[in-house]
């Protein structure tokens, strides 16, 4: 069989490009060796958010009493919670399958291996097959990275995938890595009763976020009883009776902590196996691509986690649309200026654009910062959630919005307006002049823009 486009991998990078290309009239094949929806749907974005919502409901029940809602014997049925998570994953997985079918994409459920830039061999449990393509889109994603400290392979030392499917809530957990995945997992288990410690090698958790966000979330986690150790290295893990003894070196010297589970969340590495026989240029973060998502081979595109750029599902999906468009003869360029990042802690975190220190590197002191705290938001008070703030960074020549950083209720939805603002080269004046509905959390963005301009209303 011959296709206009064959996509390798059915995650958000792959299935989105396949659907888009099919909608544009192309004959499309897609090869997936495991589950449609990829890491994101099956072992990433979706299951983590289902469990974090469970944790959030559980925590907000404490809050409920303030609002006059009384309940007794509040407890978690972990089997039910896991069942709900699995059922959401199944529903969405079925949805992706149906969408591919409805759009006429031929789906091959086997493992792909590229023989050259036009021939794909597919291995099934009981056989194999070759298909050919004018264009290939590589979207094989990533796998958890491992650090080979002594004891890394002991039972109980787990990855995010296993952390999402634990049969019981562990009494205690040590999370290695204070990045997005580590912090989300710490927040989930820390909210539902585990005794959690986060260990991060760098001086702060969420090292890519604005520094004020990092320090605020550290305080929030600590207030939930989660211990955060920065500047700390894991030396080794040993078995100690029923527990795991983790030996660490903190800035104050060596220590050891005994826990039930050790979650390794130190990043993810691209899965390059499918095309290791091809001569595609790679660098240390993955496949090298240009702004049109082309690899070093003319008719081969690469999208998503294998390009090592952001490791975000929405970036993978947009790259997928760009790759598919270009494979079909368009001339579409990927633009990374307005990529939102969301962290589903409680309160949530989201940001887009430059951090304050990134902006200072480019603009020197010619920047302005506006801030607004959620405690001054009427809507936040009516929701009983008033931790956090909005921070806007702009250049001082034009007041163009360069970055927006939010920690607080609704952050992951509020960031959409900020991303559009950056995308449309919006200035603080325009954000401030845009009427924001009252009482909503989104007013905090307007107020932060007004603060940047020197005339905040609800702030001294």
């Amino acid at each position: 069989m011959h296709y206009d486009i064959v996509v390798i991998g059915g995650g958000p990078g792959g299935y989105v490009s396949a659907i888009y290309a099919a909608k544009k009239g192309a004959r499309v094949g897609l090869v997936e060796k495991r589950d449609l929806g990829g890491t994101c749907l099956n072992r990433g974005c979706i299951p983590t958010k289902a469990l974090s919502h469970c944790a959030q409901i559980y925590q907000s029940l404490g809050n409920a009493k303030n609002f006059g809602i009384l309940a007794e014997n509040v407890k978690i049925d972990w089997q039910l919670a896991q069942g709900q998570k699995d059922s959401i994953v199944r529903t969405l997985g079925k949805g992706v399958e149906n969408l591919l079918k409805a759009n006429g994409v031929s789906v091959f459920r086997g493992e792909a291996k590229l023989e050259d830039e036009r021939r794909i061999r597919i291995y099934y449990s009981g056989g194999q097959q070759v298909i050919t393509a004018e264009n290939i889109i590589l979207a094989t994603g990533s796998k958890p990275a491992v650090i080979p400290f002594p004891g890394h392979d002991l039972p109980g030392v787990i990855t995010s995938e296993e952390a999402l499917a634990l049969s019981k809530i562990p009494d205690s957990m040590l999370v290695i890595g204070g990045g997005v995945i580590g912090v989300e997992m710490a927040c989930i288990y820390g909210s539902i009763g585990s005794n959690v410690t986060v260990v991060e090698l760098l001086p702060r958790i969420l090292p890519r976020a604005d520094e004020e966000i990092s320090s605020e979330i550290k305080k929030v986690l600590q207030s939930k009883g989660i211990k955060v150790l920065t500047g700390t290295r894991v030396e080794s893990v040993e078995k100690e009776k029923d527990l795991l003894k983790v030996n660490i070196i903190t800035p104050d010297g060596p220590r050891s902590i005994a826990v039930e589970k050790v979650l390794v969340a130190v990043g993810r590495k691209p899965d390059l196996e499918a095309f290791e026989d091809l001569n595609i240029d790679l660098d240390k973060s993955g496949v090298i691509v240009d702004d049109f998502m082309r690899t070093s081979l003319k008719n081969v595109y690469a999208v998503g986690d294998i390009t090592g750029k952001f490791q975000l599902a929405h970036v993978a999906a947009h790259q997928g649309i760009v790759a598919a468009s270009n494979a079909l003869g368009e001339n579409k360029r990927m633009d990374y200026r307005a990529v939102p990042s969301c962290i589903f802690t409680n309160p949530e975190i989201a940001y887009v654009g430059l951090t304050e220190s990134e902006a200072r590197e480019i603009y020197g002191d010619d920047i302005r910062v506006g801030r607004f705290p959620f405690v001054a938001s009427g809507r936040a008070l009516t929701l009983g959630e008033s931790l956090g703030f909005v921070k806007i960074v702009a250049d001082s020549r034009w007041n163009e919005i360069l970055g927006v950083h939010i920690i607080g209720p609704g952050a992951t939805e509020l960031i959409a307006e900020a991303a559009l603002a950056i995308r449309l080269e919006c200035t603080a004046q325009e954000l401030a002049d845009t009427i924001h509905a009252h009482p909503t959390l989104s007013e905090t963005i307007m107020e932060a823009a007004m603060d940047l301009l020197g005339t905040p209303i609800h702030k001294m």
Partner: protein
Amino acid sequence: KNQEKFIKATPLARKIAKENNVDLSLIAGTGPGGRITEEDVRKYIENKLNVKK
């Protein structure tokens, strides 16, 4: 970004200007914060037509 080259225009204004081969740098924006709006581009095109007549 070249500071002098930052022309603020709405997406709609840009679209219409492009289709009509209008140089946005010649238009003074009246929109929010001085942004060039659809109306500004349309007026500019009308004026040019009137001058030609």
